[in-house]
């Protein structure tokens, strides 16, 4: 299967997803489309320190709860979203080389130390905040989602 560039629609869907998570203040340190050659596919990664604090499953469930209430873009369903930790080599290395905040940067054939990225689109890549800040963001996020759930049930 040959490489296919990321579609404009998927690129926009990624941006929309990040905007929603920001609106609810999840505490997202990275949002990146990465082409994974061994999988022959593009993957949309949300990078958040909550993965280290609460674990993968709990963080997914948190995002899924919001998605079920508010995200309606067929270009990006919950199964298309992947989670990463800011401490993971690929994101840590990228964040040390590029500081991207609310933008869209395309990377092609980038080599940083042992890390080789063939294709990526980066909306954001920043370093992890202190744990206390991440926990405060999580609390805000949970409160806002709960509020949304209450509104949805009225």
């Amino acid at each position, binding site marked *: *299967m040959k490489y296919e560039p990321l579609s404009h629609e998927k690129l926009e869907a990624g941006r929309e997803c990040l905007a929603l998570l920001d609106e609810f203040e999840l505490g997202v340190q990275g949002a990146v489309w990465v082409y*994974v050659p*061994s*999988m022959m596919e593009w993957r949309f990664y949300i990078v958040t320190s909550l993965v280290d604090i609460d674990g*993968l*499953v709990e963080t997914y469930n948190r995002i899924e709860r919001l998605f079920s209430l508010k995200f309606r873009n067929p270009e990006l369903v919950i*199964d298309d979203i992947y989670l990463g930790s800011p401490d993971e080599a690929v994101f840590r290395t990228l964040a040390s080389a590029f500081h991207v905040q609310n933008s869209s940067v395309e990377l092609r054939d980038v080599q940083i130390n042992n890390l080789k990225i063939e294709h990526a689109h980066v909306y954001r890549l920043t370093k992890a905040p202190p744990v206390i800040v991440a926990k405060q963001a999580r609390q805000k996020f949970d409160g806002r989602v709960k509020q949304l759930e209450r509104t949805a049930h009225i």
Partner: protein
Amino acid sequence: MTNGREPRSEAEWTALSQRFMAEADRVLRTGERQIAYERYGYAAEAAAKALILRRRVLTIWPRAGQPHADEVHTHSIQKLIKYAGAYQAFCLDRQMNQRLHDSWLVVKEWWPDRYTDKPPEHTAVVLLGRAAKYLIEWLDRQ
């Protein structure tokens, strides 16, 4: 994924899946976290490939360059489940079965060369092992 001849039948893919699983358990006990991580994922991948043959979507595993080879020569377990025609049932079962739902969230994150410079944490590998086993049980029942 395979060092020797690639499996061609359902029985061969199933046997390979079991071999990867046993190997992953063994190397995890000796602390080889990176290899265990790879093998647990490969075990789930091989089980998904067996499912494609069991459902007779393909009757024989295609070699590189043959028709359908591009679609199935992938490590993407999600793509393989879709190709097997089992994705809809999988989504429904995940809604009803929390353990399957959570197992999938862990397995879908796997890709063989994800941890290149630093092995994953022991607990992350254990979690992947448990999740892969549960997913394989589901795949084997289809």
